[in-house]
């Protein structure tokens, strides 16, 4: 299996009885190395739930996940370590730590992975330069624009050389110009650094760059 991430029969439901919601319904999916995969679909169709399952934040109700060819054993696997080492996340609402500077926010991810402080500092500066923020290393989130914050998020997601980055509607809280800029960054990461990216977005402009556009409806994949 050459897939970076694979899910088989993935199902996730929330609640019980009348309140039971099937957020993801028997989904089979595989994401290959260096792929740029786009997830699209109406709000509430299960996109966030699906990438949380693939990103090992959520435990599926049914089905299995493989990361880098290894099947996840939910009872015994240290999922936090797995996330730290192999997966990067970018969130819709940035979720940078407000009292830390841009570089410190990136370094936190490396600290979690146990990287030495001086090495972390060096690598964090490189990553921020790579996402075009070499002039903003010591700014706090409040001093950054939405687009800049999301660039810091990408740098943080890249911190520990992940196998894949999951980005959940990274442009939803940006204006269109900043959204375009961020999409340029995604293209750049894809073409120049061959990063594997799974992105939930409504950005039509990214469609032509994506290797695959996955359309979801009611917890299922309807077209690829």
């Amino acid at each position: 299996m050459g897939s970076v991430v694979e899910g088989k029969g993935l199902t996730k439901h929330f609640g019980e009885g009348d309140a039971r919601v099937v957020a993801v319904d028997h989904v089979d999916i595989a994401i290959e190395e260096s792929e740029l995969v786009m997830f699209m679909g109406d709000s509430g169709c299960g996109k966030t739930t699906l990438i949380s399952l693939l990103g090992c934040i959520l435990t599926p109700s049914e089905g299995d996940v493989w990361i880098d060819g290894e099947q996840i054993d939910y009872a015994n696997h240290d999922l936090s370590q797995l996330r730290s080492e192999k997966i990067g996340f970018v969130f819709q609402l940035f979720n940078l730590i407000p009292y830390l500077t841009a570089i410190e926010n990136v370094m936190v991810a490396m600290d979690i992975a146990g990287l030495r402080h001086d090495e972390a500092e060096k690598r964090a500066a490189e990553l921020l330069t790579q996402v075009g923020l070499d002039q903003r290393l010591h700014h706090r989130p409040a001093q950054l624009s939405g687009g800049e914050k999301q660039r810091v998020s990408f740098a943080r997601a890249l911190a520990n050389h992940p196998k894949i980055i999951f980005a959940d509607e990274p442009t939803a809280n940006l204006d269109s110009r900043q959204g375009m800029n961020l999409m340029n960054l995604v293209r750049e990461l894809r073409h120049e650094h061959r990063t594997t990216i799974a992105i939930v977005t409504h950005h039509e402009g990214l469609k032509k760059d994506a290797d695959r556009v996955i359309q979801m409806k009611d917890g299922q994949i309807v077209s690829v």
Partner: protein
Amino acid sequence: MNGMRIQAQQYPKFTGANIWISAEGSGSAFIGFSLLVPEHLPYLDHALPLKPKSASPLVFAQARPVIRGKLGKAIVVGYKSGKLGGPTQFELTEGRLFTASEYEEWAEADIPLREVVVDEKMDLEIGERILIGNKDLKVVGKAKSLMFVLDTPLLFMDLRTAQEVLLKNSLHVNMVIAQTAKGFTPERAAKELEAFDAEFKTIDVRTLEQTLGDIIDTYVDEPMKAVQFLRVMLWLAAGLIVGMITYVTTLEKTQEIGVLKAIGASNFYVAALISKQVILMSVIGVICGLILSYIFAVAAPIFVSIHPIESGIVVLISFVVCCAGGYLAGRKAIAVDPMVAFRGEM
């Protein structure tokens, strides 16, 4: 607390007496009502267990002196100059000792000059007059400060003056203090004197140790029970506040913790992070508390002395309480769902 303890012991220790005699059944002159007729006790001057002629009759009574028109509180100590119970001329910081009444035989007609030696901290001048029970006394000297419990100053005067001023000139005293003879421990001396008195039942004899114990029990430990209770309540309240603060700060951090977990932080990492913050907070809190308590001790309306071991215990307790708060907060943090990273905003 500790300040009261020190003050309770100050005067009895100062006297140098190790045998304290009060009326039978009074339970010591500091506690109950004790009146003795010293004429009944001439044998004390020659009693084998006591140093010859060391027995000193004493009036020791609470009084409400009027000082510059203001009612104050004080303890009147009447003693014979040169005997145990009050300062000698050399122990004064200013002025002179009262004029001693020149009598061998006790007589009600023998009324000495009304002179008093005051505590140096009383802010009185030599030559000034104070009133005790409508009788005015002249300040002739100042003694090194020897406050009794709750900053009560001592007023030293001749035994006869004290009797005249406080006891309607009757020839009673409140206690007799003495020192043991060579070769007698205070315990043995007390026992033998009590044995001698067994058939008359006029006196209680106590050692200095027992007397100090009595004073501390009555003036410090008993009244302090209420304070002790308040203290415990204070600790609970403080603990609760610390707990609440840590709880609220952790709740505030839910989003942050969720994000950290989403990007790979283990439960251990999160718990360590919270513990670090809680410990830092408690160290700062405890240091502030200690500094403040020393500052307030100086400004307190009564003499407060901070006992290093007591402060140590207090520091330990606060630390334990803070750590308990931290532990609860840590558990709360561990339970945070990393999915919050996808929903909320920091």
